[in-house]
């Protein structure tokens, strides 16, 4: 492919502009880095929530497991630098997600969601109590980023560069997945699992695959956050953090690949800027979340799209989706016939 994808281009430009933007609003490169890490985690979660229709209330579990796995790998001397521990984290999350996915995916709908919630609560309890392995309340500290060639990763901007490149790679990979036959089947499962299975798709296998992929991407973000903070604490696996991840997805817009990334940025900005004025920023964030769910289920991305459409050549695309027609009438019979499309059909075909 010679041409660059619009979403990929948007992502790349945003990643370059983000540190500058943060500087303008008075925030640090570290904040920008956290925003990108949250964005990766939310992208992973959205694969499950937005594209496959499986709402996970416990994705922080994967974030935390990824973070702990990377930290433990580095501290035990088993893997040096940041690359090998991150690979270990990815592998570990993949194995655990496969094993747990087989169990959790046996339940559907709200029971699936409750099991993921339980997973997050369980992971948190284990991380908090199992002091010998996880450091318990104190967490696991003393991590180091090392260097990448001549680049000293302890420099915030250098580490941001690494995280941004990984984020871009994740975005590229997810784009390919979403546009592949596999990705289209995921959407089919979201829309109508019964019919998908009657069309010959072993939907349980698809669900397990996307569950693992989603966990791995979120776990990767967790590993990156461990080195970002030089510390892993049990909070990374908490139910509350799971909810925040879900809020990022919903606020950003779950029907669009880039939506959750936007939501993550919104979350970080909201947290940083509001906490200057009010220690109750989470209350306001919660209200914003409720407002999005009620008035703009499509999230920020949809609001952006609406604004763009309002300003211009939107009429045609609106007419093509007449929305929920009130009632089917015999007079609309003709819409069945080949030529009469809702929009003026091209004359030559």
């Amino acid at each position, binding site marked *: 492919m010679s041409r660059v994808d619009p979403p990929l281009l948007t992502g790349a430009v945003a990643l370059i502009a983000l540190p500058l933007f943060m500087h303008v609003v008075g925030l640090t490169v570290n904040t920008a880095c956290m925003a990108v890490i949250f964005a990766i985690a939310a992208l992973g979660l959205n694969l499950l929530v937005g594209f496959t229709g499986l709402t996970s209330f416990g994705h922080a579990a994967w974030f935390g497991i990824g973070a702990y796995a990377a930290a433990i790998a580095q501290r035990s001397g088993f893997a040096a630098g940041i690359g090998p521990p991150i690979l270990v984290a990815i592998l570990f999350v993949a194995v655990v997600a496969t094993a747990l996915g087989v169990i959790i995916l046996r339940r559907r709908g709200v029971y699936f969601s409750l099991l993921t919630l339980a997973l997050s609560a369980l992971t948190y309890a284990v991380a908090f109590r199992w002091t010998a392995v996880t450091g318990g309340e104190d967490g696991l500290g003393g991590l180091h980023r090392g260097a990448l060639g001549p680049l000293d990763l302890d420099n915030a901007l250098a580490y941001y560069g690494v995280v941004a490149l990984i984020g871009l790679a994740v975005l590229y990979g997810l784009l390919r997945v979403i546009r592949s036959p596999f990705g289209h089947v995921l959407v089919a499962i979201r829309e109508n699992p019964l019919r998908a299975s009657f069309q010959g798709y072993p939907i349980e296998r698809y669900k397990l695959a996307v569950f693992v992929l989603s966990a791995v991407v979120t776990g990767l973000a967790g590993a990156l956050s461990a080195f970002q903070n030089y510390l892993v604490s049990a909070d990374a696996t908490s139910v509350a953090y799971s909810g925040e991840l879900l809020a990022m997805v919903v606020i950003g817009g779950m029907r669009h690949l880039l939506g959750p990334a936007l939501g993550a940025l919104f979350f970080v900005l909201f947290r940083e800027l509001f906490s200057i004025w009010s220690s109750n920023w989470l209350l306001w964030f919660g209200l914003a979340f409720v407002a999005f769910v009620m008035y703009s289920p499509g999230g920020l991305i949809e609001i952006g799209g609406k604004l763009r459409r309002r300003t211009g050549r939107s009429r045609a695309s609106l007419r093509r989706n007449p929305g929920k027609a009130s009632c089917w009438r015999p007079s609309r*019979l003709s819409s069945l016939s080949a030529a009469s499309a809702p929009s003026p059909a091209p004359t030559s075909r």
Partner: protein
Amino acid sequence: MNAGEVHALIGPNGAGKTTLFNLISGRFSPDGGAVRLCGKRIQGLESHQICRQGLARSFQITSVFRGLSVYENLRLSLQGGHAARFDPWHGIGSFPELAALTRQLIAFLGLEGIEDVAAGSLSYGGLRLVDLGIALGSAPRVLLLDEPLAGLAAAERERVSRLIQTVAVSIPVLIVEHDIDRVLGFAHRVTVMNQGSVLMSGTPGEVRADVRVQAVYTGAGTPPVAERKTAPGAGGAPLLRLERINACYGKSHVLNDASLDVREGEIVALLGRNGAGKSTLLKALAGLLPLSSGQIIYRGRDIAGLPPPDIARLGVGYVPQGRGLFAGMTVAENLALGRLARRADGRDGVFWSERQVNEIFPRLHERRSVAADYLSGGEQQMAAVARALSGNVRLLLLDEPFEGLAPTVVQDLFHVFDKLRGMLSIVIVEHNLDVVLALADRVFALERGAVFHEGPAAPLLADLDYRKRILWL
């Protein structure tokens, strides 16, 4: 089933046709017996494996990927048989043969020009075509179609049935359909089912002529379970009048300018085949389904558009199909809930006190502390009727009250309804024609949401030839 054959499966409600489909296609797995597809046993396999073996089905309730475009819907179906269906890396656009096949399928279905429209915003006829197209997309060796014509208008029926005949030239089609005229018109073989077993199999001509089949559909004319004891409800004052009401389920236009009237103290039966709109009419009366137009004049005022609780408090009692009891609550609690929100003093209409319920249905008294879902079907029906009458009722709506009940229970209920004649008005929907015609004073026959016949019930009960002329084929 042989290639080039359309095999129709017909039978009244509850005969087990859709259940048979679900068993064949792997939604449920059979307790015993064998299903063979091209010589291979397929029973007990999962539905996606059965599909891969070459069996595709459509659904009675249209089942498409609503949020996706028509093109994507059909491509997803074709992609199921493609080697790359698990491919997570290459763009979907990089499989030109898939795109070509999809375009062919769209052309075959005549859906060109609306490929990019979201399936959810199509007309009902379009949805049924996409549903059919998805089934065809998996390149089946056998096609099962569950009521492909249900809810379609005449011209669309014509179009879809022609499409089915075209398909059937190369793929054998097993079709369940209630539009018997049409399906007998193009089927090569017909199997009639009744109450879970096959009644007969033969050519359409044989089926049309078969006495047993006619009996299944129009009743045998054998003595009804009970002689009615009360005199016919003499033409009292009008209680209810429906004027040209229209209603839709989503895009399916179910009631089509239906008009009827009910007088004080009479029993009115709604007849008609499946999907004719009988139950829908009762739901519209009870306020459970909004009308798109028309008036419901009840005791001099228009109640169309009122919420169901208000309608219930005006004295309309509704016994839904399947009884609608509160499972997990005891019989006594169910009845108490029937009493709670309505006036229960008998001043306006009929009201049964607890004592009366016990006299009329002694069984319920014995079972009063048993959870409703542990009752037998007959007891549940009694509880549902008793609950409806636990507040003041002037008009009682009964949806299939005799469905699935043993003859003695049918007889008991029959007597109860018979006794209510003169005290209140009843509108009853029932497929058991012998019973319902014996009970009713007048009948309205519906077809595709419109009333096509109205008249007294007695001639239909007594004169079988007349009944067939009106109700059969």
